[in-house]
């Protein structure tokens, strides 16, 4: 599709409320442009949040907090960096960040795919509930904290306390893990996990990484019911 076929909104001159309302008005069977370009975000918060239609939104620049928060079915691509909470609580769709993402990337998200081509800072995938998150670079400390379900793929390194108190989510890391959180252990990579990683790499469109290079981490399941011997972990 050529650039001319995108509805363009310049956040330097258009109020955010107007942009988000126009995007929300396209929910359901509403008529209107499906492809959008947003310019000059300049760190604005809550850009393209709450989308609920099969839209394609390109954002030229850096966004602030909660870009594409609670996204449903839409495809959002940020040609820049994203602030805290990008794609938080996403339900479905795809959010892609060309640069880095700040804290809480993909926090509590239930579905869809979040791709970060750069690095994320702390708490990537915190409390994730079914989303797939793929990071080409590194992730910060306390990532996948209390991660319930979903998959986190990290091509670079992971910071301290990875997967602390996690439930059934799956974590795949290719680089170094600075430290594991409470009840998180390394697990065996079996054929179905290699297939998992292959699928995630392909969906994310990452080059230069192979499934065999990844290690798997998950819950040791020792904190699922209280046992006196584990009192120290609380």
């Amino acid at each position, binding site marked *: 599709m050529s650039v001319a076929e995108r509805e363009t909104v310049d956040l330097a001159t258009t109020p955010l409320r107007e942009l988000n309302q126009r995007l929300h008005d396209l929910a359901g069977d509403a008529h209107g442009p499906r492809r959008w370009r947003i310019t000059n975000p300049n760190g604005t918060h809550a850009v393209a949040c709450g989308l609920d239609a099969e839209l394609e939104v390109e954002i030229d620049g850096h966004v602030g907090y909660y870009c594409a928060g609670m996204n449903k079915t839409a495809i959002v691509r940020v040609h820049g*960096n994203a602030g805290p909470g990008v794609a938080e609580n996403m339900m479905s769709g795809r959010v892609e960040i060309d640069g880095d993402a700040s*804290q809480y990337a993909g926090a509590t998200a239930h579905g869809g795919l979040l791709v970060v081509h750069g690095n994320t800072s*702390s708490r990537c995938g915190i409390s994730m509930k079914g989303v797939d998150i793929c990071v080409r670079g590194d992730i910060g400390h306390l990532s996948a904290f209390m991660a319930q379900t979903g998959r986190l793929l990290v091509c670079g390194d992971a910071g301290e306390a990875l997967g602390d108190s996690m439930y059934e989510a799956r974590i795949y890391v290719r680089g170094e893990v600075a430290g594991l959180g409470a009840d998180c252990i390394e697990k065996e990579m079996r054929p179905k996990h290699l297939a998992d990683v292959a699928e995630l790499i392909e969906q994310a469109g990452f080059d230069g990484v192979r499934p065999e290079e990844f290690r798997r981490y998950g819950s040791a399941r020792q904190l699922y019911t209280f046992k006196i011997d584990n009192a120290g972990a609380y």
Partner: protein
Amino acid sequence: MCGIVGLFAKSPEIERDLGRHVAAMLGQMSDRGPDSAGVAIYREPVAAGFSKLVLQHPDLAHDWESLAADLGRMFGGEPSLERRGNHAVLVVAAEAAETEPFVRAHHPEVRVMSAGSVIEIYKETGRPEAFIEQFALAELSGTHALGHTRMATESKVTTEGSHPFSTGLDLCLVHNGSLSNHGPLRRLLQRRGIEFQSLNDTEVAAGYLTWRMREGADLRTAMEGCLEDLDGFYTFAVGSAEGFAVLRDPIACKPAVMAENDDWVAMASEYRAIAVLPGASTARSWEPSPATVYAWERERVA
């Protein structure tokens, strides 16, 4: 809670327009800090043997001339006097170690905002936009500056409760977060001779740094001491004559973004405060790691 900003000039153009850029950064942080605003700007170093004091009095029509004359009688020469809002900048022909205590002892009617050879601290209650205008921040130039917008958590909204806090000569601190052990720490520092003007948790952190450095620690060591002795959530930015330093606590929940290009190094609570700087969209940006002191000093950048 709050917004903090920091800007360190690497080029003459940024130095010349420093105040204007810091004002734009502060403006972006007023949502998260509506109660008061403040700036510490490093500019116009005084000659050796001189000191610069920034004093405040709530009354705009305060008789600063008499105070300046008093300082002249005590220390010789004719102290220069510049008014900025309800603050006054005085340059006196003696070291700050003498002039500051003199003012505190003989002029308790005014507040000492900063003392040193290059620092100027301005701070006041009210919305940041009003502060910027009141102090004509945009016309100032300087080498580096820290700014702060305040949302008071557990202490009153007052001038003395605003940031930046002066921790010592040419030193200042701004803080985003909330300390949980500031009560006992304040009492301990008071017993060690540090005085406090407010019940603000940030003032305790500032007092802590002053105390550590008085006991011989350098700035970096004193800041690393925060990791041991302060409890709570914090992003700190500390200014000194040479530059500034940034530290986040180990849990690192409070935000911090840094960016750098050939012309400047900047720090802010939110990216949109950095976005207003020239060349921001192509600057390298990153987030400081927790429990790590980052420092920039003028000697290192030619």
